[in-house]
């Protein structure tokens, strides 16, 4: 076997190896993009539900106001928490503010227990169902977001896909943590 032949074989092997590496990188990159989109999608789902919660609160306050004349403090707490939550910029901030808003809402619902007339009001019952479902949807979209994020984070940290993640700078995503201790104990607001 001539040196030329050996050189050719070595070249071919290197070329094949390179091709495999390139295919792997392309494949992994595409998987990462898909996963990242899923995480973003799950995040926007949380946003949709949080926005819905913010939209429902004025409705709730309006329905309840007539019945609960002496509870100005409770209404103010909700309205303030809502304003804070709507102004939050980062994932961590939003988590904190939404936790506080959840607390304010569950306190409000405890107060409602003292007003049987309000609890029998059809409009209030309808808003209550929407609100409690929105609370659930927030919890479930957070659950779906965290599931997706864990999957994504695992993939970009594991060898050898972490090298590809490093080259194209895919970075770890934050989990959506609930900061309020009360809500962590009972993840869902019960009405």
């Amino acid at each position, binding site marked *: 076997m001539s040196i030329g032949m050996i050189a050719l074989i070595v070249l071919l092997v290197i070329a094949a190896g390179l091709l495999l590496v390139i295919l792997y990188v392309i494949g992994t990159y595409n998987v990462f993009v898909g996963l990242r989109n899923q995480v973003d999608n799950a995040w926007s789902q949380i946003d949709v539900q949080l926005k819905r919660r913010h939209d429902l609160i004025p409705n709730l306050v309006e329905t309840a106001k007539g019945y609960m004349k002496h509870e100005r403090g409770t209404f103010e707490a909700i309205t303030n928490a809502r304003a804070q939550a709507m102004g939050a910029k980062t994932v961590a901030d939003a988590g904190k503010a939404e936790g506080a808003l959840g607390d304010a809402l569950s306190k409000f619902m405890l107060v409602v227990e003292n007003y049987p007339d309000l609890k029998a009001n*059809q409009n209030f019952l309808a808003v209550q169902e929407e609100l409690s479902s929105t609370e659930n949807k927030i919890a479930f*979209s957070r659950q779906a977001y965290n599931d*997706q994020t864990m999957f994504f984070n695992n993939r970009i940290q594991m060898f050898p896909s972490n090298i590809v993640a490093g080259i194209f700078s895919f970075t770890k995503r934050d989990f959506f943590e609930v900061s309020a201790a009360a809500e962590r104990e009972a993840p869902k607001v019960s009405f």
Partner: protein
Amino acid sequence: MWELIRINKRNSVLLLMLMAVCLLGLGAVIGMAISGPDGGMLGLMIATGIWVVLTLISFSSGDQILLAASNATAVTHDVHPQLFNVVEEMSIASGLPMPKVYIINDPAPNAFATGRNPKSASVAVTAGLLAKLNRDELQGVVGHEMSHILHRDILFVTLAGIMLGSVVLLSQVFLRGMMYGGGSRRRYSSGGGKGGGGAAILLIIAIVVAILAPIMTQLLYFALSRRREYLADAGSVRLTRYPEGLASALEKIANDRAPQLASANKVTAPMFIVNPFKKMGQWNLSDLTSTHPPISERIRILRNMSQGASLKDYSDAFVNVTKSRTVMPVSALTKEDIALRQASAEAKNEQKEKQLRQVGDIMRKVNGFIFLTCACGMTLKIPPNYSAATVECPRCHTVHNVNKT
């Protein structure tokens, strides 16, 4: 999760192929029995023809046929906000598109899911289920149905049901033909020019196959549909994080004394969350021909889950309760740390009359009745064919406008 779906898909394909072998073999043997060895090809072709036609029908409109056969009506958010919201919650938790929501006009509590793929899926629940379960329990049941969609069970159940139907049909036609029309068979076989002995042996083989094939197909079908029920229970808990919801829903459904679901039949039975044909006191009977695992066992497994809500936790509870090997594919049991949550819903009013009235109200809403609440506390239920523009409250004589939109 994805591993589980992949394995489930592979099993579905395998099972459908086995069932197809049963169907085609049956066709070939019947063909040979009727018109000699040359008839085998013809029988095979006819069986294939039946199968292809039925599969095409079930692909294009199987879910619509099943929903119509079950007496289900498509509903919007306004008809039953809670049901609609719960389905939406589960679709968010599973990351699937929102399925269409149907209510079945029946007081027996039950539910099923159908459709070709997650994009065209439908979830149907009975009016009785809505009246009897509280929010957490309803969520458990809807989570179970959503898991069937997530695991791609819905297409499998439809296709396998159709296949089972064709095998049963073919063997019934053949066996009945043998019983009542033996003469025509003899004419065919003598026309083939073969001796009587060979034809008689073929005939006996054909009869044996015609009796065994439906049983074989049914066993294949049932074995996998039972496993899928466990998997869907596990999936439901993973979505809701609250095993007690589904457990107490199953308990209520099992102890319900309403007459059995009127619109269910043998082919649609495996679709429902609980076998619609089970009579009281039969729960511990776990035989080969049962489409669903014993309900008491499903409840005990769910109540045994105390560590977490992942598939692995369900699998551990399953092993604990049944003392047998896990039903989960081992590779799907990755470690996940998923905490359980607390109960959220209020206790449901258990009064019988109130529940019956609710069943009626749900059905009226599904059928387009308009509900007006009068200031005196009276609720007026206006039928859709009411033609006047106003209605007077029978108690306090206030006149209400009827808004038809």
